[in-house]
């Protein structure tokens, strides 16, 4: 088949395509779309974290306020506000930055390059040492301490620590280590599963564009 014939065949294939009028186009715009581009997936993921995270944050504070003894409240509530607030503010900051990002109208190659950099920037593929060794173990320790203090009832905070058996302390440390050791690769696995395959594909597409220049 000559190339002109290919071209004409391709052009003719659109001859019977249904043309949408203004009203139909407006209706379609109202419907919106569940975009499958990487940046839109990341936006949705951050939005989901916020929708889930903010009520959880408020719920934990309310529970601490209701169930804890006054002597515990003064320690736990500020720590919980600082810690949970800090993690939510981190998610919010990233969401705020990415929420108005629209698909690039740049040339294809630079746009692809930028999309790849954005994904690497917003998806935490290799968790930071701070998250690995501070945030995750601290979350476990804090959760266990809150549980203990709720169970301690009227006991004083210092008294609770002094009366804790060594076996209990060792158990808590073990849970913290094992829990963190499980959570870190699990969280990395989820990120890779959600975005790594997509990122690799985009990198291979970029390579296709680079090969053209050779």
């Amino acid at each position: 088949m000559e190339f002109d014939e290919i071209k004409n065949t391709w052009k003719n294939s659109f001859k019977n395509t249904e043309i949408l009028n203004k009203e139909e186009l407006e209706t379609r715009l109202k419907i919106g779309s569940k975009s499958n581009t990487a940046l839109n997936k990341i936006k949705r993921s951050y939005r989901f974290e916020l929708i889930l995270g903010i009520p959880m944050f408020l719920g934990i504070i309310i529970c601490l306020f209701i169930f804890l003894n006054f002597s515990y409240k003064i320690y736990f509530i500020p720590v919980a506000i600082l810690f949970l607030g800090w993690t939510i503010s981190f998610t919010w900051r990233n969401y705020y930055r990415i929420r108005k990002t629209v698909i690039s109208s740049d040339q294809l190659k630079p746009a692809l390059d930028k999309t790849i950099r954005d994904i690497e920037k917003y998806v935490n593929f290799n968790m930071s040492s701070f998250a690995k060794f501070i945030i995750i173990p601290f979350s476990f320790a804090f959760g266990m301490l809150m549980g203990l203090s709720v169970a301690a009832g009227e006991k004083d905070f210092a008294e609770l620590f002094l009366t804790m058996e060594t076996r209990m302390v060792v158990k808590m440390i073990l849970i913290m280590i094992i829990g963190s050791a499980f959570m870190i690769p699990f969280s990395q696995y989820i990120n890779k599963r959600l975005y790594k395959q997509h990122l690799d594909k985009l990198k291979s597409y970029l390579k296709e564009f680079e090969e053209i220049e050779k």
Partner: protein
Amino acid sequence: MTKLNLKEEFVSLIEKHQGIIYKVSRMYCDKEECQQDLFQDILVQLWQSFPTFNRQSKFSTWMYRVALNTAIAQFRKDQKVNEDSISDLPAHIPEDESYKEKEDRIELVQKAINKLNNAEKAIIMLYMDDYSYEEISEISGISVSNVGVKINRIKTKLQKILKELEYGI
């Protein structure tokens, strides 16, 4: 410009140039459902990006860029091209020989195009849509000198694929 005016202007421009969305959707998806989803997504992405259109370039050039960027950035599971379906046209198609031949040829060309990579698809589509080398370069980001060379290579590749598909090599 108010949002209402902006939307009116946008819809008018899209009504005129919607063929671009159809072409990109068909170029990057071989299944009807995927094409429909991609059409819808490109339309929405175009509307969201419309405020960034600076009116210095032609609307169709800007539209091609956004549409192609959306299509390429989409995550699609690898689509397996069904080799057998060339001779597998549904039985209810009118028995007019020329019609069937035409349909067969369109399907064959579409299959051959599907075998090109993303960059090649973008370049050949713009070329088949009568864009100049300069415009193809402006949209793709590939230098003008390379566009010409690459188009010749893609043409040869496409003809080779078609031959393979026609004769089942």
